């Protein structure tokens, strides 16, 4: 029986799975379609609910993976074909240097997620005004020290693309409440003179330290939370006018802002349905990979020998992705041993 395992996706879930298999004597081929490992995690400046340096953590994990014997890392590589069954798959890998064929015992899919481009949200002037950015662009601005200076007002908009049957997805993306709080805190730390406003529908921060983190944003960093979904962002001269209803008092409100940050939804990775077609596994109505059983077998796909890890199954935070990577690794080891 072949002992190798193929891990698809070099984000934090894939890196963790590869590390755990290799540390337990297995052999791993880790493929990543981008040139660098790290995935979405590497695009962040800080983590939550503890404000730690995200770049430092992800670099450390990548180094560990590279230093562990038994992991072959193939950047710019995509899966082209799969044949065989659990314990004896033949996979075809394609990279700029050519196509190669490998025998593997198990496959772990850790394809990650994609931040939705809110182009459908024209009411938020996205794409028209350069002062309306997505949360991912905000991370980039923060990393490049381009956050508004002086007495600026920044508005954070929750649920852009999430909980929206008409233009986005029905599900809750789970992490936006927390990362918007993180962004508001980053803003206040970078520029204490600035004012931050967060428009929310419900605050969904479930996890150790999450509620405290958001309360800190409100109480320690003085971020104003207003309950109501933003309806319109209007350009007015050099400013933006944000219109919403404060639904707790039932009155329309207006905030003049210098920057509007849209918390865009987590959506399935690009080409997830194609990948599922190649692997012969099922996806759900949105394009996330379908678990065999949601509660007790979260990392089994619909096909034996193919396991799932991380946010390609559902929106999740880093800690869950790491845990799921570990679980997928142990499932794969059970199969190939």
């Amino acid at each position: 029986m072949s002992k190798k395992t193929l891990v698809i996706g070099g984000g934090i879930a894939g890196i963790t799975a590869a590390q755990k298999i290799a540390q337990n004597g297995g052999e791993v081929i880790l493929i990543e379609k981008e040139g660098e490992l790290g995935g979405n995690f590497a695009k962040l400046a800080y983590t939550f609910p503890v404000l730690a340096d995200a770049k430092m953590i992800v670099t450390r994990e990548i180094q560990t993976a590279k230093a562990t014997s038994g992991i072959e890392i193939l950047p710019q590589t995509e899966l082209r074909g799969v044949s065989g069954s659990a314990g004896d798959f033949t996979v075809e890998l394609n990279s700029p240097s050519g196509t190669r064929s490998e025998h593997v015992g198990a496959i772990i899919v850790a394809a990650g997620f994609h931040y939705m481009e809110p182009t459908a949200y024209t009411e938020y002037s996205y794409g028209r005004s350069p002062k309306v950015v997505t949360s991912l662009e905000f991370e980039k601005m923060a990393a490049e020290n381009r956050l508004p200076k002086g007495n600026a007002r920044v508005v954070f908009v929750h649920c852009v693309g999430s909980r929206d049957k008409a233009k986005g997805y029905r599900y809750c993306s789970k992490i936006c409440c927390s990362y918007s709080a993180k962004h508001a805190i980053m803003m206040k730390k970078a520029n204490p003179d600035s004012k931050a406003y967060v428009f929310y529908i419900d605050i969904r921060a479930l996890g150790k330290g999450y509620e405290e983190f958001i309360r800190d944003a409100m109480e320690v960093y003085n971020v104003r939370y207003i309950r109501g979904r933003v309806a319109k962002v209007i350009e007015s001269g050099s400013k933006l006018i944000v219109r919403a209803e404060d639904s707790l008092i039932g009155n329309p409100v207006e905030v003049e802002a210098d920057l509007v940050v849209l918390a865009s939804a987590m959506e399935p990775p690009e080409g997830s349905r194609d990948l599922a077609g190649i692997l012969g596994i099922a996806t759900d109505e949105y394009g996330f990979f379908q678990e065999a059983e949601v509660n007790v077998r979260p990392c089994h796909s619909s096909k034996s020998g193919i396991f799932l890890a991380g946010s390609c199954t559902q929106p999740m935070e880093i800690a869950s992705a790491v845990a799921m990577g570990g679980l997928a690794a142990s499932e794969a080891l059970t199969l190939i041993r």
Partner: protein
Amino acid sequence: MRLRIDEDGIRNVVEEAIGKSLTACLQCSKCGGGCSHSEEFDLTPRQVVESLLDCQDQNVLDSRMIWLCGRHCSGCQAVCPVGLPLNDIMAVLREEALKLDIEPKYEQPSLVYHKFEHCAKHRGEGEASESMVGGETQPA
């Protein structure tokens, strides 16, 4: 005042007319936030929906909102994340109010236009309400 949540009333009529359940409403308040007239309304669309779900039929039927909103401006309907047909909801509520003989509530009720009786009969009355504040009259 404590509201009493009791039997469902016109909620059922509305739901049957629009072919959708009002429970779809997320209470996100995007409707009221974008409405260009919400300053003048006593209820916002989401409050109408919540009141219907809470069986507060009288509050809704007595409001000014159902008379002022829902003229196919569609500002709320176009942004509703769950696609509730708010124009139609208001039209159904107006019909229900009329069935109960509730008078339309406009700031200046020129009922001439409403009651379907020919304008000529009420001409004097109509002009009085137009010219009360002065300025050029502009009926249409």
